[in-house]
């Protein structure tokens, strides 16, 4: 039986080409970043190996039905023949025709079960990353794992950075509504449900950036809630970890960036944390839920410029050209390109500035400001801060120092 299965798997391409033209056509549109038929890791490969023959079998059965129907239609069309005998059925035939699909499904079920339990395994985990969903961004935090050089917890957002060839386990949860974490190239979906911690295996075969998208409807900007998984070689990953754990470097005295730090301390620090940032009185600036914001947290901006995106992964922090350079880089250099981070030249000034100018105008976050009674007047996402252009320039200068 298994050999038949393997044969089906191997020949699936050919069978598919014969069976379902639409699916061939699907493969004509190449390199869709979220294509579910292009596995890039062992977990998605398990799924792929399972679904190809299933699709093939389904296609064949569909064809058989279509052919049978069309044949019947042609053969028994009304050509003036007399009204036929009123036969009421042939039980033996019907039972046979009932058992055959049942048997096919039984075979499918056996392999399905195997895959389900393989994908649910957690005892071979090598690395753990906590993932927290929130409208409309993902927060990643790395618990202390000395074998990867993570000696103190790392917190990040926007892009999941992980080493290749490592069995990563995501521990997902959510702060508000249900989200779903999905990097099609690496594995299927797993919902991030508030109050629960759910796990998802991820493993990438090769360095690269893998796109994903929140797939559980989560409100207004559901369409903008994207994610990117960055797989780095183990060496590159170690570099990334080292950078993330680097201490806070205060901006140079009397620079624009230092004025930006003041603006940051006045405005942004209410929600956004930058680890190591001190207030003027020498106390650490710790973000806490703001009275204006309903949901309890905002992205941690420590080492912001090591990421390629901002506002979760809704916008690019890199200009289009620089972004394409990273995304299109072959797998052996993608790590280096990524670790270069965001430089002043590559910064997507336009989007970042307009975000600081008026965030709600860029990303739908609440439908109507007058209808916030239910939240006690608190809205979700980043509010309009009424920053002056001057302040914005200062802030951008400051943010650029967060390498």
């Amino acid at each position: 039986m298994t050999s038949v299965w393997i044969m089906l798997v191997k020949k699936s391409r050919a069978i598919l080409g014969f069976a379902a033209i639409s699916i061939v056509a699907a493969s004509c549109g190449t390199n869709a970043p979220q294509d579910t038929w292009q596995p890039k890791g062992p977990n998605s490969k398990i799924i792929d190996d399972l679904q190809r023959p299933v699709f093939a079998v389904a296609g064949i059965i569909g064809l058989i039905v279509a052919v049978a129907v069309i044949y019947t239609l042609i053969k028994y069309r009304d050509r003036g023949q007399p009204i036929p005998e009123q036969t009421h059925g042939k039980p033996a035939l019907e039972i046979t025709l009932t058992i055959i699909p049942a048997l096919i499904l039984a075979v499918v079920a056996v392999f399905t079960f195997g895959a389900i339990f393989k994908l649910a395994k957690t005892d071979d985990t090598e690395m753990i990353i906590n993932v927290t969903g929130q409208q409309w961004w993902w927060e990643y935090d790395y618990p202390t794992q000395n074998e990867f050089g993570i000696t103190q917890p790392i917190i990040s957002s926007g892009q999941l950075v992980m080493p290749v060839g490592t069995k990563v386990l995501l521990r997902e949860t959510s702060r508000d509504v249900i989200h779903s974490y999905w990097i099609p190239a690496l594995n299927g979906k797993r919902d991030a449900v508030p109050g629960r911690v759910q796990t998802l295996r991820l493993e990438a075969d090769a360095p690269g950036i893998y796109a994903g998208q929140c797939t559980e409807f989560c409100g207004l900007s559901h369409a903008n809630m994207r994610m990117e998984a960055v797989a780095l070689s183990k060496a590159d990953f170690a570099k990334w970890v080292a950078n993330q754990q680097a201490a806070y470097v205060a901006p140079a005295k009397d620079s624009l960036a230092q004025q930006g730090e003041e603006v940051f301390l006045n405005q942004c620090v209410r929600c956004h944390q930058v680890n190591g940032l001190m207030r003027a009185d020498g106390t650490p600036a710790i973000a806490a839920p703001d009275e204006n914001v309903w949901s309890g947290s905002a992205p941690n901006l420590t080492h912001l410029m090591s990421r390629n995106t901002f506002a979760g992964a809704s916008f690019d922090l890199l200009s289009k050209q620089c972004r394409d350079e990273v995304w299109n880089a072959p797998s052996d250099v993608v790590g280096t390109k990524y670790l270069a981070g965001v430089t002043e030249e590559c910064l997507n000034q336009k989007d970042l500035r307009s975000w600081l100018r008026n965030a709600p105008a860029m990303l739908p976050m609440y439908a109507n400001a007058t209808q916030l009674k239910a939240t006690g007047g608190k809205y979700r996402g980043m509010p309009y801060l009424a920053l002056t252009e001057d302040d914005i320039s200062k802030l951008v200068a400051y943010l650029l120092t967060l390498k």
Partner: protein
Amino acid sequence: MFSTGFKYFLGVTVLSIAALIMSLFVLDQVAIAGVAISMLIVVTALLAGIAVVTRDGQTTTSTPDASNELASQSMWPLVTSIGVVLLALGLVTSSIVFFTGVIVLLAALAEWMIQSWSERASKDKNYNAAARKRVLNPIEFPVLAALGLGVVIYSFSRIMLTVNKTTGATLFIVFGALVLIAGILFAVKPELKRSLVVAICVFGAVGIFTAGVISATSGVREELVAAKAESHELPECGAERSEHFDKEATGTLSLRSSVSATIELLDGKLTAQVVGFNKPQNTVTVRRSTPTSLIFRNLDAKEYRLVAELGTRTLVEPEGATEKNLVCTQLTAQGSEQLLLLDIAKSPKAGTSYSLTVPGVEGQSIELVVP
């Protein structure tokens, strides 16, 4: 010409007038007597007038209809009088009785009125009965059903509150089985005598009611009395123990499925089984502003509680003072589990940390990382 009744009342009136005149002369305390006799004169004169106008209600041609209408049996006079009595008793005893009386009285009067009305609706008895049913059944059935169900439910609840938990479960099964058996019996034997069915139902209802009354008078079971007496707020994380704090996680399936970590105390050692980790941990990550459930499982012989120390909080009074910010579970006996729901808004200050400890177990703590 003048009817007998008129003569009688006229006589009374005349005599009353005489009495009035006499009383004016004779009696010392004229006032009350005068007024009373005057009233009597007015009343009897009025009656005399009525008598003469109606010729004593004389019907010379035929026997009046009213003398042939047989009022059917009715429970409403009885119920109404009970209502009045309850109302009167209620004036003296308690407002519940009074309002019961008012309700019974109003209901009975309504029923009485409708019944009387319906009996005059036409000369056809059956039709009248049907008319009455049409008007009243839509009110009666819901009210009676609600009352009946209410009584049964209330009685049953009394029983359940009185018997102990195990007996309660048994009773529940027995009751359920009896209802099922009776139902099946009725279903498979539709030819069953109506009176038997009624008898079974009445027997059941009366049985439950009686048991309910007995239970109500004998009071609720001890644990509930105790449970009522004690505070159900999360207690201070001191040494006291709540007997009946009903938040054991052991049986709570949904909570167990959404737990983030299980903190285990075994042989004086505190370890954390964290979802996703294969080995016991000594740190647990709790994400900021995210409701996180932890289960505390005590495998040691003594009773312990898990305490989360979450920094300090500033007190309103005295101003400026602080105290430890603690969240804790109940004291947990050996082998049982309790749930701790944490929602931490703020990371700890640099150099400090949040932790989970168990009072009475020294040197063991699990760090709560809030990134």
